[in-house]
C-alpha cells in the first residue's frame, strides 16, 4: 500500500547535514535512521545504537551499534560509518550541524559495532542531538561520492529509500526491503506532498487524495472532529511562540520596551494568553510563559502562566515612567495566523496603554532585520528541541547564536552553561529554574503560547502515534482495509 | 508659357511594394513614374486620367504627404522633399489638400466645426471668436449652415462631408490648393457653388488650384491648363481650350469621346478603347498606351515617347504632329426648347428677386471675400 502525507511546506535540501527545515525532518523520519530516538515522553531510546554508556566524568560516550544494518545502497552500517558521519557533520564546510556536535573531540571504533566518542567537556545535550539530524546516519559511500550534492539523492538507512523528488510537488520514498525493522513497516511507498494551503490540504484529505496531513489548522479541528471519516491526533510541541524584544542589539534597542523590563512585563500582563488560545487557536494550543510548555518537566512551576491584569500592567507602566502609555513597533511574519495573533495582542495591549504598531514583513526580511538589530520587537518562535538546552541556551546566553535581542546577563550565562554540562536531571532543573526566575523579571522574550502539532488522518490509518517533536514515525502504522 | 512657377516637380517617382514574397523579388507598382510639372501662380491646373493612373499619388507627392522614391518638388524656391518637418508644417498653411475620400479623412471624434477650425488653430490664425465667425462663414459658403458645426461627420451625407473637407482646406487662406476630386461627390448645384467660390478666391487672392477631377465638363469650365496622365506618366499637357477642342494624344481623344452628355439618348461617339488594361506592375514597353491605341505602329511598341514641346503644349506621342484627332465640338445645343425656356424663366425670377445672374459675379454665397 502507499501512504500519501500532506506537508505544509516543501522541504529544503534533503541532506541531514545541510538541511534546516522542520518539514525536512518529517521526511527524514522515514528516510534516515538516527543513532537514538525518543519516545513520546521524550525518553531517549535506542535506534541504530542498541545501547550506550557514559564514562563517569561524562567525557566519553560508548555506543554499541545494531547488527545487520545496511544503508540503502548496500553499504554496511558499522562503527566506521558512524565515525565518517560524525566527521561529515563536523567538518564538511557546508554542514549546519557543527555546533550541535561541537562537544565531540574524537570518535574511534572500538570494534566493528562499537564506537566511542570523546568529549571536550561534559555535554548533557549530546544524546538529544543524536536523536535528531546530527544523529542521522547517511551512507558514507554515497556521501563521499556525492559530496555537497548528496541531498539531491540521499542515501540513508531508514525504513524507506529515496526514489524521486519534484520540487514543490512531491517526494517519493519506497520501502527498503533490508530494513532492520522491516516487519513493522506496512507501506510500499510513501509520498510526501507539499500543500501549503491548510484548507486545500484538508480538502485533499477529505477527497481521498491524501491519507494524512500534518499541521491541521487549529480552526479546522472542530470540523475534523465532527467528520466521521477522519481522525485527529495532537501533541503539544517542544517549541514556543513569543515576542522577542531588542534589548541591546544596536541603538534600535533605545526605546521604552527595549530599555525597560517593566514595560515588557506590563505588556506580558496586558495579554490574556488563554483568550489568545481560544480566539486564534480554538483552544487547541497551550498558553505559555516560558521556553517550555507547562507540561514539560523543565517548566518552572513557581511562575505559572499569568492571568491578565490590566491594572497591574498600567501600574507597571506608571512606575516605569510612562503613565500615558507607550508606543512600540512589532514586526510580524506575513502569515495570516501570526498576523491574527498579533492583532489580538495589539488590541489587548492597547487597553493597558501600550500602543503596538504592527509591521508585516516577509520572512527573509524579518530575519535579517532581526539579526541585524533593525527592529524593536519581533514576533517569532522556535520549533523546539528535545533537550531543554536547545530552547533556551542559544537565545539567552551572551554569545548565543540566535540571541537577536542581545540579552546579556552573567548570572543567566553561568546557570545555563552549567545546566548543559551536568548529566543529572535534578541539578539541571535547579539551574533552569533559577535562570527562568531571572528571565521572568528581565523578559527579553515574552512567551505567548506553545503550538500543538495536529495531524488529521483518514480513518483507515491505524497505529499512528503523535510525538511532541511533530515527526511522523511510520513504524507500526498501517492502512486498514 | 510665362508667369511665375509656384510649384514644380522634377522627375517625380513613387513606387509601392504590393507583395513581398519570402524569396524572390517584390512586386512593385510604379504609381508615379517620372513626372515633370510646372504649375504657375494663379492658374488652375487640372490633372485627368484613367482611374488608378497615379493622380492621387502625384497629388500627395506634391504636398509631401508621402515621400517620393525619386525626384524633387519645389515650392517657393525650396525643395519640399528635403524640408525639415517644422518648416514643412508651417508651409502647410499655404499648401492645402482636399482628400478624395470624404469620410475616412475626417476624424470621427471631432465635430465638423472643430475640424474646420483646426487649421486655424494650428497656424495661429485669429482668436476664439474670430475663428468661430470664420468657421460659420466657411460653412455658409459651402452650402451648410453654422448650426452644422456641432454635428459629427457620420451625421452628414457624402456630399456634405466632401464640403467639410473643402471648407477645411480653405480655412487658412492658402496659396495653393490641391484638390483630389474635390467636387465629384457633390450634386451639380452645390458643385456650381463650390466652383464659383474657388474661382472667386482665385480671382481675389491669386490662389493656385491643382484639381484632379473626372468630370471633364467641370474641368473645362475651371481649368487653365490640363495634364492628362496615363499609367503613372503625363502624356499631354495643354491649355484647357486647346486640349478639349484639339487633343494631340490618342488617349486624350479617347477620354473626350467617353464624356457623357446630359441629353437623352445614346452617347455621342462609341469610341471605346479596345484591349485589356495594362498591368501597372508590369507596364508595357515602349509607349504605354500602345496596347490600346488605334493609331499605334511598330515604333510605339519599343520606343518610349517622351514629353515633347509642341506649340503651346507638351505631348508624349511619336506622332503627335501628324495624327488627326477629334476633340469636342459644339456647346450645349443639347437642351430642348422648353427646357431652355424654363432656364430663362428661372434666371429671370432670380434676377427679379434681387439676386444674381450668371453674368454678374455677385452670388450671395460668395459675396464676402475670404481673407
Amino acid at each position, binding site marked *: 500500500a502507499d501512504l500519501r502525507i500532506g506537508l505544509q511546506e516543501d522541504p529544503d535540501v534533503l541532506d541531514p547535514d545541510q538541511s534546516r527545515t522542520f518539514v525536512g525532518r518529517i521526511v527524514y523520519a522515514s528516510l534516515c535512521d538516527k543513532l537514538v530516538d525518543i519516545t513520546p515522553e521524550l525518553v531517549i531510546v535506542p535506534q541504530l545504537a542498541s545501547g550506550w554508556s557514559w564514562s563517569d566524568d561524562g567525557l566519553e560516550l560508548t555506543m554499541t551499534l545494531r547488527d545487520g544494518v545496511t544503508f540503502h545502497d548496500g553499504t554496511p552500517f558499522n562503527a566506521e560509518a558512524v565515525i565518517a558521519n560524525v566527521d561529515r557533520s563536523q567538518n564538511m564546510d557546508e554542514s549546519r550541524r557543527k555546533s550541535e556536535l561541537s562537544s565531540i573531540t574524537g570518535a574511534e571504533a572500538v570494534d566493528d559495532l562499537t564506537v566511542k566518542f570523546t568529549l571536550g567537556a561534559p555535554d548533557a545535550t549530546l544524546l538529544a542531538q543524536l536523536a535528531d539530524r546530527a544523529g542521522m546516519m547517511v551512507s558514507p559511500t554515497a556521501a563521499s561520492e556525492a559530496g555537497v550534492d548528496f541531498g539531491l539523492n540521499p542515501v540513508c538507512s531508514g525504513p524507506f529509500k529515496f526514489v524521486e523528488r519534484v520540487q514543490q510537488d512531491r517526494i517519493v520514498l519506497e520501502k527498503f526491503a533490508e530494513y532492520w525493522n522491516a516487519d513493522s513497516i506496512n507501506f510500499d511507498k510513501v509520498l510526501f506532498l507539499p500543500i501549503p494551503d491548510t484548507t*486545500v490540504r484538508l480538502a485533499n484529505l477529505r477527497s481521498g487524495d491524501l491519507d494524512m496531513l500534518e499541521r491541521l489548522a487549529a480552526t479546522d479541528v472542530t470540523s475534523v472532529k465532527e467528520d466521521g471519516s477522519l481522525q485527529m491526533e495532537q501533541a503539544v510541541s517542544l517549541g514556543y511562540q513569543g515576542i522577542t524584544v531588542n534589548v541591546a542589539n544596536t541603538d534600535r534597542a533605545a526605546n521604552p520596551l527595549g530599555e525597560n523590563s517593566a514595560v515588557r512585563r506590563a505588556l506580558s500582563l496586558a495579554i490574556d494568553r488563554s483568550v489568545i488560545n481560544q480566539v486564534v487557536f480554538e483552544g487547541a494550543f497551550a498558553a505559555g510563559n516560558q521556553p517550555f510548555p507547562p507540561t514539560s518537566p523543565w517548566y518552572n512551576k513557581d511562575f505559572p502562566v499569568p492571568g491578565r491584569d490590566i491594572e497591574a500592567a498600567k501600574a507597571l507602566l506608571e512606575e516605569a515612567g510612562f503613565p500615558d502609555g507607550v508606543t512600540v513597533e512589532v514586526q510580524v511574519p506575513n502569515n495570516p495566523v501570526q498576523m491574527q495573533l498579533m492583532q489580538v495582542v495589539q488590541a489587548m495591549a492597547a487597553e493597558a496603554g501600550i500602543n503596538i504598531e504592527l509591521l508585516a514583513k516577509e520572512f527573509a526580511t524579518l530575519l535579517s532585520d532581526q539579526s541585524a538589530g533593525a527592529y524593536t520587537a519581533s514576533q517569532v518562535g522556535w520549533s523546539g528541541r528535545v533537550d531543554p538546552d536547545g530552547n533556551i541556551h542559544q537565545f539567552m546566553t551572551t554569545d548565543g547564536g540566535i540571541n537577536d535581542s542581545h540579552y546579556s546577563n552573567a548570572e543567566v550565562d553561568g546557570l545555563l552553561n552549567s545546566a548543559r554540562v551536568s548529566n543529572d536531571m535534578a541539578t539541571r532543573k535547579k539551574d533552569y529554574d533559577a535562570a527562568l526566575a531571572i528571565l521572568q523579571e528581565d523578559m527579553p522574550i515574552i512567551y505567548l503560547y506553545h503550538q500543538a502539532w495536529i495531524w488529521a488522518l483518514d480513518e483507515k490509518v491505524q497505529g499512528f502515534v503523535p510525538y511532541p517533536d511533530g515527526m511522523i514515525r511510520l513504524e507500526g502504522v498501517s492502512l486498514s482495509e | 508659357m510665362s508667369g511665375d512657377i509656384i510649384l514644380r516637380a522634377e522627375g517625380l517617382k513613387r513606387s509601392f511594394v504590393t507583395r513581398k514574397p519570402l524569396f524572390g523579388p517584390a512586386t512593385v507598382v510604379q504609381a508615379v513614374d517620372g513626372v515633370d510639372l510646372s504649375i504657375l501662380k494663379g492658374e488652375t491646373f487640372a490633372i485627368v486620367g484613367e482611374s488608378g493612373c497615379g493622380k492621387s499619388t502625384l497629388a500627395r507627392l506634391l504636398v509631401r504627404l508621402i515621400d517620393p522614391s525619386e525626384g524633387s518638388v519645389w515650392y517657393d524656391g525650396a525643395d519640399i522633399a528635403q524640408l525639415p518637418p517644422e518648416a514643412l508644417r508651417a508651409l502647410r498653411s499655404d499648401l492645402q489638400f482636399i482628400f478624395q475620400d470624404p469620410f475616412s479623412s475626417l476624424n470621427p471624434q471631432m465635430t465638423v466645426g472643430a475640424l474646420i477650425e483646426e487649421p486655424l488653430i494650428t497656424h495661429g490664425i485669429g482668436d476664439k471668436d474670430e475663428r468661430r465667425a470664420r468657421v460659420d462663414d466657411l460653412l455658409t459658403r459651402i452650402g451648410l449652415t453654422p448650426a452644422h458645426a456641432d454635428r459629427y461627420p457620420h451625421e452628414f451625407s457624402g456630399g456634405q462631408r466632401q464640403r467639410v473637407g473643402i471648407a477645411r482646406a480653405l480655412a487658412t487662406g492658402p496659396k495653393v490648393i490641391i484638390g483630389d476630386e474635390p467636387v465629384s461627390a457633390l450634386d451639380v448645384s452645390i458643385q456650381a457653388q463650390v466652383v464659383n467660390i474657388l474661382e472667386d478666391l482665385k480671382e481675389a487672392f491669386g490662389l493656385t488650384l491643382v484639381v484632379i477631377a473626372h468630370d471633364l465638363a467641370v474641368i473645362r469650365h475651371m481649368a487653365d491648363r490640363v495634364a492628362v496622365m496615363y499609367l503613372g506618366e503625363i502624356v499631354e499637357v495643354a491649355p484647357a481650350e486647346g486640349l478639349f477642342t484639339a487633343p494631340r494624344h490618342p488617349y486624350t481623344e479617347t477620354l473626350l469621346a467617353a464624356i457623357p452628355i446630359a441629353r437623352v439618348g445614346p452617347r455621342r461617339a462609341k469610341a471605346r478603347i479596345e484591349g485589356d488594361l495594362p498591368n501597372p506592375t508590369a507596364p508595357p514597353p515602349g509607349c504605354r498606351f500602345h496596347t490600346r491605341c488605334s493609331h499605334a505602329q511598330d515604333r510605339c511598341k519599343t520606343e518610349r515617347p517622351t514629353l515633347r514641346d509642341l506649340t503651346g503644349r507638351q505631348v508624349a506621342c511619336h506622332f503627335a504632329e501628324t495624327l488627326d484627332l477629334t476633340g469636342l465640338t459644339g456647346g450645349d445645343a443639347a437642351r430642348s426648347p422648353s427646357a431652355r425656356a424654363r432656364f430663362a424663366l428661372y434666371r429671370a425670377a432670380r434676377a427679379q428677386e434681387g439676386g444674381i445672374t450668371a453674368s454678374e459675379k455677385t452670388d450671395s454665397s460668395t459675396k464676402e471675400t475670404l481673407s
Partner: protein
Amino acid sequence: MLAFLGRRILIAIPTIILISIFVFGMQKLLPGDPVLVMAGEDRNPEVMEFLREKYRLNDPIPVQYFTWIGNALQGDLGISLRTQQPVTELIGEKLPVTIQLAIMALIIALSIGIPAGVLSAYKKGTWVDWIANLVALSGLSIPNFWLGIMLILLVSVNLGWLPASGYRPLTDDPLQSILTMLMPAFVLGTGLAATLMRHTRSAMLGVLRSDYVRTARAKGLSEQVVLIKHALRNALVPIVTVTTLLFGELLAGAVLTEQIFTIPGFGKLIVDAVFNRDYAVVQGIVLCTGIAFIAMNILADAAYRVLSPRMKDA
C-alpha cells in the same frame, strides 16, 4: 514577415540581457540575506562565511552578475540555494507544467471571453448585455482563491469528480493530466475571460458601426459571419494586446492558483525563491519569463501586421 521576425529576435538578445541585469540588480537591493535564510536554526558564523564565499555573495554586485551571466551563456544557470538542484533542471521540470496551465487557462478564457464580448456588444443595452457584463465582472471580482477552494470543495470533496490538487505530467497520462488541471485552468481562465470580454465588447462596439460591417450585411452574410469575420477581425488589435500580455503573466503570475491547486509551476517556484532569496532560481525564471514576454510581444506585433495590413506601411 520573416525579415521582421528575424530582426525582432535579434533585438531580443540584448533585451534579455537588459532584463537580467535589471532583475539581478533589483534582487541584490532586497533586504534579507540568503545565507541567513539558509543557515536556519544554526547560525554558525564560520559556515555562513563559507557559504557567502562559495556562492560568491561577497563579490561586488557587477562581478556577481558577470559570473552569473558568464555561466549562463554556457548553459549553467547555477543551483538553487534551497535545494541545491541545478536551476536548468528545475526550469525543465516546471516549464511544461506552467505552459500547460497557461495554455489551458488561455483557451478557457478565450472561449468564454470573446464570444461573450461579441454577444454583449451585439446586444448592447439588452438583458443579454447586462448579464454578460455582470457575469464577467463577478469573474473579475471573485478572488481566485475563493473560486478555487469552492471548486475543490464542491467538485472534489463533495462530488469526487476531479482530483483536488496536484499535477500529472502530460506525458504520463494525457487525459488525467488535463483533468487534473481543469479546475485551476478554469479558475485562472474565468478571471482573464472577464478582461477579454470587456475589451472585446468595447472594440466590437466601435467596429459594429463601421461602413464595412454594413457592406457585409448588404452581401446577405449571416450575422455570425458578419460578426466574426468582418467585425471581430477588425476589433482584434486590443484583444491581441491584452491576450499576449495575459499569457505572459500567466507564465509567471499564477501564484495563488498554483498554490491552491498545488501545481508545481513557475509561480510558486518564483515566490518561494524570492522569499528564500534564492537568487539563481529567480534569475533563471526571470530569464524564462522574460523570453516569454518578448516572444509574446513579437507575436503581438506580428499579429498586428496581419490583422491590420495597413500597419505594415506605417
